């Protein structure tokens, strides 16, 4: 598929002034953070933070775009910012002087993959910031600044993550986005559930981060460097050796690296078994869910795998593991998504599910498919979230699909509804006219095209049907049907009190939102732009990735060809029930999607008269406890709680007890030993002359006895 040169020739790297333009991205975003901080300090009570943020993010987008246009994607460029963790020392090994260094600079590594990611991160970031300027307007004041500061910081971190030229800077971005995610999930900090969700997100991510950190350490230990260029240059030699059939030439350490990196990727991208934080993360404001927890941050894991693709190729288990976990996650979370009532949570599970697709794409050796799906998903999932957010915003936090119906027929909700429909079609993979269809199909086809991953293909196909069902379940319940609604019981903005009297503001806030209010210009604009672009990107990406393909063929995809030599599977020899896989799947996946939509129509739209009930309700009892289990997320949270959190809590208490009474007790015992000994000796000081004399005589006798016994 790719020419030999692509595989063997290590892409040239160069340092160029043009690349320095990308340094504007972290600079501008940090500037935005600082400005928002200043606004907070100055107690600015208008929308200035939002507009500053939007402007600076737009500028970042332009900077990335300019870089792309200037440099192209044929070569890899290094843009050096400044030395971060960078030191060297000399030592001696076997009497030879050696020099070592640990270099992790604040430098950017620019190639197609990087720029692709940066384009949609900054682009979507700008749009969603614009959306948020209206969405968050009820919080104008301190909270507003906080929101946009964290938002900008997120883009900064994401830029570091994506553009890093070494693993440590990637790790900086990695944890940085985790921090922003924490801050933004916990934005409504008075809500205990939000605080808990934020904490959960951070901690679960940290588990993944630990694996990533260990992977990075292993990389450094093995390769002696953290910089991509050095590491990849060495992997080239391994790949060369592999192509000559020397499978045993790859050390076990190297084979372990991708497994560890995978741990990090699964944490950040919410895959089994670390996906549990993402649904809870919906406690955050919706723009956050859209940008961070749907479009960008959660794809960091995918990015990581794509970035370190050559390393993954070196282990025969790594990519299959990625594919299998992705497939299982996709299916598993789709089943949960089918049974939820909270529309944002449904979208969250669908994100988890779609991320599974992306990993599958990478796992079945179509990194183009993976990246393509990331790209399309970013647009339509952001759009779906933003549409849901508009609903939530308008209905005072109402998210229960049983309490909303026919929103699309209400005044002012047209744009939202259309956007929602476009998003749903994309997610469901409606054939031909949606970009989601093309990207998902690419993964499906590739899965079937490989005879070893047929099972994965079937799982994904089934999941595609489920996806179509639950997506349109939301659409049919909420946006069409009879007009009925029930307002939410909260106004999240009320938590941020501009006056400093937190207790007093609930009631009036509730009163002002007794009726729904339709989204304003900013929300509508953003939704419209996204809806259009969801279609607009089709020509760029149509069939086998198109533009996306050209973007990453120089970086990640060029290794796919090498995979053929690695025993990862005979490329393109698998079939779908005897038909050519890609061609057949174009048809089949379209049909499966359509079936899902039809079932959703039948169960949730046809003949529905109220918001709360539908035909599906009648069906539920026949399925036994399964819907209830699915609705309770298969009790995974409870399982984790029971298996990990509680034992740990008990253990901590035991430790605390041990520390107080045993460790400290022993210490205190040592401390008490003198006085205890003293108490034992004290009776000899009876105050009586004769007893003293007797003790003295006896003591002398004993002493002499000891001396005679020991010394002679």
């Amino acid at each position, binding site marked *: 598929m790719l020419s030999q040169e692509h595989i063997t020739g290590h892409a040239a790297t160069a340092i160029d002034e043009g690349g320095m333009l990308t340094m504007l991205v972290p600079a501008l975003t940090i500037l935005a953070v600082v400005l928002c901080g200043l606004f907070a300090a100055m107690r600015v009570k208008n929308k200035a933070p939002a507009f500053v943020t939007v402007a600076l993010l737009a500028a970042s987008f332009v900077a990335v775009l300019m870089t792309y246009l200037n440099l192209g994607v044929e070569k890899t460029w290094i843009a050096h910012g400044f030395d971060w963790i960078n030191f060297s020392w000399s030592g001696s090994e076997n009497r030879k002087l050696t020099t070592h260094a640990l270099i992790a600079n604040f430098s950017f590594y620019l190639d197609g993959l990087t720029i692709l990611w940066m384009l949609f991160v900054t682009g979507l970031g700008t749009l969603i910031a614009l959306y948020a300027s209206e969405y968050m307007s009820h919080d104008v004041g301190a909270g507003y600044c906080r929101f946009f500061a964290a938002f900008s910081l997120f883009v900064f971190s994401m830029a570091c993550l994506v553009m890093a030229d070494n693993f440590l800077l990637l790790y900086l971005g990695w944890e940085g986005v985790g921090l922003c995610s924490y801050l933004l999930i916990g934005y409504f900090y008075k809500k205990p559930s939000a605080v808990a969700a934020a904490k959960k997100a951070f901690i679960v991510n940290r588990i993944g981060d630990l694996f990533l950190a260990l992977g990075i350490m292993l990389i450094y230990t093995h390769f002696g460097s953290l910089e991509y260029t050095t590491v990849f240059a060495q992997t080239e030699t391994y790949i060369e050796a592999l192509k000559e059939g020397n499978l045993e030439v790859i050390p076990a350490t190297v084979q372990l690296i991708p497994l560890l990196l995978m741990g990090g990727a699964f944490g950040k991208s919410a895959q089994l078994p670390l996906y549990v934080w993402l649904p809870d993360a919906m406690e955050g404001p919706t723009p956050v869910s859209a940008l961070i927890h749907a479009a960008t941050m959660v794809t960091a894991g995918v990015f990581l795998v794509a970035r370190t693709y050559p390393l993954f190729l070196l282990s025969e288990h790594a990519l299959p593991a990625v594919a299998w976990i992705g497939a299982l996650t996709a299916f598993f979370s789709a089943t949960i998504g089918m049974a939820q009532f909270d529309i944002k949570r449904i979208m969250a599970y669908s994100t988890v599910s779609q991320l599974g697709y992306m990993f599958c794409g990478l796992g079945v050796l179509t990194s183009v498919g993976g990246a393509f799906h990331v790209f399309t998903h970013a647009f339509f999932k952001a759009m779906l979230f933003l549409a849901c957010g508009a609903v939530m915003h308008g209905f005072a936090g109402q998210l229960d699909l049983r309490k909303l119906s026919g929103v699309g027929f209400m005044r002012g909700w047209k744009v939202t509804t259309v956007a929602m429909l476009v998003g749903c079609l994309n997610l469901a993979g409606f054939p031909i006219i949606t970009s989601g269809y093309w990207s998902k199909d690419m993964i499906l086809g590739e899965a079937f095209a490989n005879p070893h991953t047929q099972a994965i293909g079937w799982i994904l196909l089934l999941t595609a049907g489920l996806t179509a069902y639950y997506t349109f379940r939301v659409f049919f319940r909420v946006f069409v049907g009879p007009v009925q609604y029930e307002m939410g019981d909260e106004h999240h903005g009320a938590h941020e009190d501009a006056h400093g009297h937190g207790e007093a503001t609930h009631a009036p806030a509730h009163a002002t939102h007794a009726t729904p209010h339709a989204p304003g210009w900013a929300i509508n604009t953003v939704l419209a732009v996204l809806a259009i672009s969801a279609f607009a990107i089709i020509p760029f990406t149509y069939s086998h990735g198109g533009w996306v393909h050209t973007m990453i063929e120089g970086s990640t995809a060029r290794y796919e060809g090498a995979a053929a030599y690695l025993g990862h599977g005979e490329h393109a020899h698998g079939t779908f029930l005897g038909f050519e896989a890609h061609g057949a799947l174009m048809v089949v996946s379209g049909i499966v999607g359509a079936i899902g939509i039809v079932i959703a129509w039948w169960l949730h739209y046809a003949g529905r008269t109220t918001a709360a009930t539908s035909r599906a309700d009648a069906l539920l009892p026949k399925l036994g406890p399964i819907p209830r289990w699915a609705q309770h997320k298969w009790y995974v949270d409870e399982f984790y709680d029971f298996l990990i959190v509680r034992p740990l809590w008990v253990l901590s208490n035991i430790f605390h007890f041990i520390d107080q009474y045993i460790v400290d007790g022993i210490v205190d015992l040592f401390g008490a030993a003198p006085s205890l000994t003293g108490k034992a000796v*004290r009776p000899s*000081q*009876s*105050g*009586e*002359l*004769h007893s003293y*004399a*007797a003790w003295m*005589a006896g003591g002398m006798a004993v002493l002499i006895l000891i001396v005679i016994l020991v010394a002679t």
Partner: protein
Amino acid sequence: MSDLLTLAQSGYPAPIAGVTLAHYLFVSAAMFVLGLIGFLTRRNLIIMFLCTELMFQAAGIALVAFGRYHLNFHGQTFVIFILTVAAAEAAMALALVVLLFRRKESLNAEAWQDLKG
């Protein structure tokens, strides 16, 4: 112990046949131990003091015997001083006992055990 045996066998000169240094030392040791036992068992302050005198004089006997054995006068000289010191101590002891008796009308050593612990 071999030294003692040697000493005992080579006692020179023997004023009384068969009485060697060892005999003197035995007497001396016995006196010392008797004095110690008396000190530990008696409660009367004066008797206790006399017991310490007994121990002093036990040393005196041994010194004289050793002096005779070594054929020099260090031992005898020492004894003179011991006697003097013993006299001084006796004077002090009596004064002290009188002082104590005035306070408690008793010579029992057990009357004085307020300080302890």
